[in-house]
């Protein structure tokens, strides 16, 4: 067997109220893609942060080519040849794509930044990742998925021997994932050692060579070859018992009861001629490739970016939605944003305050009086329903694991109890167990008479949940597919609409 | 020796008051009292109030205060009075009714008035004047503006104020504004009167830089820049005050009051716009002839006031 490039022995890391890692072992060898798996909050990102110098372990050793090392900061790790894609976006919004990609090591000429070289070298990786953006475009003009890809390019450009990727595929579509996997396999074959974190087990089985699973900060398994395992084994390691498929029973959809209707809607964001009907009890899927304009349409519906033509009808009445407050309070429309860090959560506030924000007005009494206990009590059921792993309601959301943050972002809107709920990529970064729970929850919501507009790039999720699927592209509706919950047929039909539009 | 412990508190750090420190030391030696010069950290009424309050806590039992605000300082002096701590206004006055035993200093209005008169004379009785002065929120600034106006009015129709620039107590804005004024209206203006320290210094410097002796100027106070500009003929003169005398006589008076003397009602008080208990510490126009030995003149004034102060202003038993 080859010498490990990186070995972790008995790593322990505590945060106030949480023991994130508890004696974890981990061995990474050259020329392998090593899956690091576990439930939300299991400690995956913490382990990665220890390997990249973001956190120092409380105890335990890290060996690089057999030598013990202690990275005091990210720079030290980079210099040791470790590069990483972190779970959280870490880009400089006003700087160009190329400069972001090259920030670790900006090429200089005569003491000045050589922008020609910056753009050139960045472009190489932009193209290899199949990104259709210009290197001199500012990052803030990108969509969430594009930013994720830029983040990946930023790690790849270092051409490091060791590559750590914390949920790199969380918010990109299968197409981009394919391209990425091709690249990663190529790097592996050239001898790179890659750690890959994901909640999408299909991806793990397609890509990885060995698996390490963490549970509650401990090893559930340590570097088992993937060939020896099947999906059920991995799930058992992760959650300690067998996987459960979502129980989605019968759900009546009243075709006559249209709660939201768009007729020829155009928006200032660039949509045109959007027709759409959403019925009581229905889950309507909205599928499209990155940049299709689904998120933008959702925002327009809650009053961000105006409707410029056509009519919006809510519960049979023509509706004008000037802002999200009106959407929530008057029309009872809620929007779970795909950008949890920017638009979904208040990272410096605690769990209770994040979940409660949509219901404070409803809960408060005379003069807006609202006790902390009462507010938290109203949020607690949702923390339990979504199994949010937090030491208390008073924990800062920024200190939660990525997946748990996502759950908080969803919980907030479950609490809001809207009649129409637009959920945008709700299960990004959520572990398989909670994903099942969340699917059931959305199903239950619809069954109880809510209407749900589901935006998701996760095709299986779409096929499992939606009653009908609208395909979007280029800020227009390309077509509609009636869902018969058969994955093969559905994906063919959906891609058919997309390709037809591309051909046209 | 007596148990008098007098604090001399200026409005803030400022070169004008430097002489108070020497005066306090001299008074302490001469009268067998304790006298200390204590400067608030910044030129601000509330800082000065805090300073005075903490001095009380340290056992000072008499105060000579340059009022941080002619109205605002009264409340503090009143509180001192409630603790039987005598106080007086020094260099500038508090507005009546006041708990200050007296105001020993310069009648700011009179000084501005006299300075303007001198300027008008230097201009030959007619011409256009600019007036540069300090913070508008300082009540003294109002008095100065009015006094300059009065002097101009009395000069008949030949004199005119073409511009008043205020709020230039910091050097950089003063430089900016005074030069901008000279750029725009330097050819129109015949005379400049300044009634605050910084504008005097800056205006004197600007005239020297321009090499302009056509524009006449009367300044205020004894900054070296102004004095040497007078010697070199760029400035006609300055309205001097007597800070040393203020500190010295004030300390003396405070000690007597502490020993039971009271202020005489029918003393030769002067009446100013602010108070009915004003004692002039000496104001003099100093021109090129006197600039060399202006200090001697001030010592003479001080001695003169000292000689009769006790008899004129105090009732002691």
């Amino acid at each position, binding site marked *: 067997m080859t010498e490990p490039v990186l070995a972790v022995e008995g790593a322990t890391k505590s945060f106030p109220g949480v023991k994130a890692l508890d004696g974890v072992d981990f061995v990474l060898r050259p020329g392998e893609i090593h899956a690091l798996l576990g439930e939300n909050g299991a400690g995956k990102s913490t382990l990665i942060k220890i390997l990249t110098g973001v956190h120092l372990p409380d105890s335990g050793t890290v060996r690089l080519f057999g030598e013990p090392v202690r990275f005091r900061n990210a720079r030290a790790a980079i210099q040791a040849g470790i590069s990483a894609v972190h779970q959280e976006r870490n880009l400089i919004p006003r700087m160009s794509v190329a400069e972001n990609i090259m920030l*670790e090591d900006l090429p200089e000429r005569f003491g000045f930044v050589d922008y020609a070289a910056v753009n050139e070298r960045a472009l190489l990786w932009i193209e290899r990742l199949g990104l259709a953006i210009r290197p001199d475009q500012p990052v803030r003009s990108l969509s969430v998925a594009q930013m994720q890809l830029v983040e990946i390019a930023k790690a790849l450009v270092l051409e490091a021997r060791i590559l750590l990727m914390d949920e790199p595929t969380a918010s990109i579509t299968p197409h981009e994932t394919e391209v990425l996997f091709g690249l990663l396999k190529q790097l592996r074959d050239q001898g790179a050692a890659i750690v890959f974190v994901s909640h999408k087990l299909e991806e793990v089985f397609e890509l990885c060579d060995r698996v390490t699973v963490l549970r509650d900060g401990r090893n559930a398994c340590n570097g088992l070859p993937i060939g020896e395992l099947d999906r059920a084994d991995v799930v058992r390691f992760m959650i300690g018992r067998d996987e459960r498929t979502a129980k989605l029973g019968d759900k009546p959809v009243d075709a006559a009861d249209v709660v939201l209707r768009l007729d020829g809607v155009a928006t200032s964001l660039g949509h045109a001629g959007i027709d759409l009907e959403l019925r009581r009890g229905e889950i309507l899927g909205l599928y499209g490739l990155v940049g299709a304009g689904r998120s933008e349409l959702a925002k327009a519906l809650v009053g961000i970016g105006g409707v410029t033509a056509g009519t919006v009808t809510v519960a049979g009445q023509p509706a004008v939605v000037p802002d999200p407050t009106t959407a929530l309070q008057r029309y009872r429309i809620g929007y779970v944003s795909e950008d949890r860090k920017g638009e979904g959560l208040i990272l410096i506030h605690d769990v209770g305050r994040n979940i409660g924000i949509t219901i404070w007005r409803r809960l408060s009494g005379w003069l807006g009086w609202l006790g902390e206990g009462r507010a938290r009590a109203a949020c607690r059921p949702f923390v339990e329903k979504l199994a949010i792993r937090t030491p208390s309601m008073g924990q800062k959301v920024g200190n939660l694991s990525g997946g748990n943050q996502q759950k908080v972002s969803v919980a907030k809107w479950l609490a809001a109890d809207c009649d129409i709920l637009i959920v945008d990529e709700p299960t990004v970064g959520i572990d398989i167990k909670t994903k099942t729970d969340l699917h059931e929850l959305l199903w239950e919501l619809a069954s109880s008479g809510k209407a749900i507009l589901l935006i998701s790039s996760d095709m299986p999720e779409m096929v499992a949940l939606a009653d009908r699927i609208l395909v979007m592209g280029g800020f227009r509706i390309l077509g509609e597919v009636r869902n018969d919950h058969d994955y093969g047929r559905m994906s063919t039909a959906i891609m058919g609409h997309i390709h037809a539009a591309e051909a046209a | 020796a007596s148990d008098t412990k007098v604090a001399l508190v200026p409005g803030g750090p400022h070169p004008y008051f430097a002489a108070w420190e020497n005066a306090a030391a001299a008074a302490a030696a001469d009268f067998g009292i304790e006298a200390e010069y204590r400067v608030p950290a910044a030129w601000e009424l509330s800082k000065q109030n805090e300073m005075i309050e903490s001095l009380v806590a340290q056992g000072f039992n008499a105060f000579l205060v340059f009022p941080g605000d002619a109205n605002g300082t009264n409340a503090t002096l009143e509180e001192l009075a409630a603790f039987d701590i005598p106080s007086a206004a020094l260099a500038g006055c508090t507005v009546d009714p006041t708990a200050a035993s007296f105001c020993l200093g310069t009648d700011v209005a009179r000084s501005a008035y006299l300075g303007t008169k001198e300027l008008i004379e230097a201009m030959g009785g007619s011409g256009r004047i600019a007036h540069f002065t300090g913070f508008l929120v300082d009540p003294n600034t109002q008095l100065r503006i009015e006094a300059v106006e009065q002097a101009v009015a009395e000069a008949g129709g030949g004199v005119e104020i*073409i511009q008043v620039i205020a709020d230039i107590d910091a050097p*950089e804005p003063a430089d900016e504004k005074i030069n901008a004024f000279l750029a*725009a209206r330097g050819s129109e203006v015949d005379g400049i009167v300044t009634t605050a320290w910084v504008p005097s210094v800056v205006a004197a410097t600007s005239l020297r830089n321009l090499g302009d002796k056509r524009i006449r100027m009367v300044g205020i106070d004894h900054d070296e820049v102004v004095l040497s500009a007078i010697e070199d003929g760029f400035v006609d003169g300055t309205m001097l005050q007597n800070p040393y005398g203020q500190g010295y006589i004030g300390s003396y008076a405070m000690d007597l009051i502490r020993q039971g003397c009271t202020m005489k009602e029918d003393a030769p008080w002067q009446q100013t716009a602010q108070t009915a208990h004003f004692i002039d510490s000496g104001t003099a126009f100093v021109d090129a002839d006197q600039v060399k030995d202006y200090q001697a003149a001030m010592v003479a004034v001080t001695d003169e006031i000292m000689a009769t102060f006790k008899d004129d202003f105090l009732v002691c038993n």
Partner: protein
Amino acid sequence: MLKGIWGSDWFGLFVVALVAGTGLALFQPAFLSPFNLYVLLISFSLWALVAMAQMVIIAIGQMNLSVGAIGGLVAISFAGSMEVWGLPVPAAILLGLAIAALCGLLNGVMTHVTGISAFVITLATLSIFKGLNIGITEAQPFYGVPDVVKAFGNARFEGLPHMLIVPVVAIILIWLLFNRMVLGRQMLALGANRHAAELSGIRVGRVVVIAHVISAVLAAMAGMLAVARLQLGQPTIGDDWLILSFAAPVIGGAVLAGGHISVIGTCLGVVIVTLINNALVLLGIDPFFVQLFLGGLILIAVGLNRWRERRLAPA
């Protein structure tokens, strides 16, 4: 190219400045007189350095309240060392810069090592530097400024003040720093997202400290120019810098939270504020109305710029 200028974030300010200048020239012909332009440039020289000193710190997402205090301390050290110790001018300049570098180092190291917000640290050091100034001078100016220095403060060449050379060089260097140099880009990255900058291997501590040193050195240059201009070492130099030091960069489009500044915008911010102050004198505004007009004009200038930006936005 032209489109780039039209769309740049300082173009609106440029228009505002132009309109203000033209209007002023129409109302008051003296505005365009060589002497007034010279006076304007003198003011610009000083304020541009002050604004730049703050801008560098805004870029890294912090604030430096001690800009004025450093300027003042250097001003009196500069004048004092020449008067009291008879230091030759170049040595005094070096001494001034060295003191500033030390002050900047203190600010930078303290903020970085302790992790306390720069606002608090520089507030404390403001008090220390100003306190040193007052303690040394006892509020008395240093008068013994050598004639060379005085002459430099007054010298002009074809209506251009000699001292303009200092800010012009500084502005060019700072522009290059932020637009063309790795260090400057790292400063901006740090200001925009400290965590991201750290993860990108940027040596945050080093960058923070250098930024503070640059800021202090710029403040020092402003302080020494003020001495040359005022021809004496006033202890009060720098007392009034704080507001303008923030106002010009922010008017110029800097994001107070950090990560974005505009060197040209900041200069135009200085130009606009200088023009407004000049106008208030040139138009002979009643002193009682000066503050009222000042506030109103700032609001109008910023409002016009915003209005233009908004008109431009959908295009």
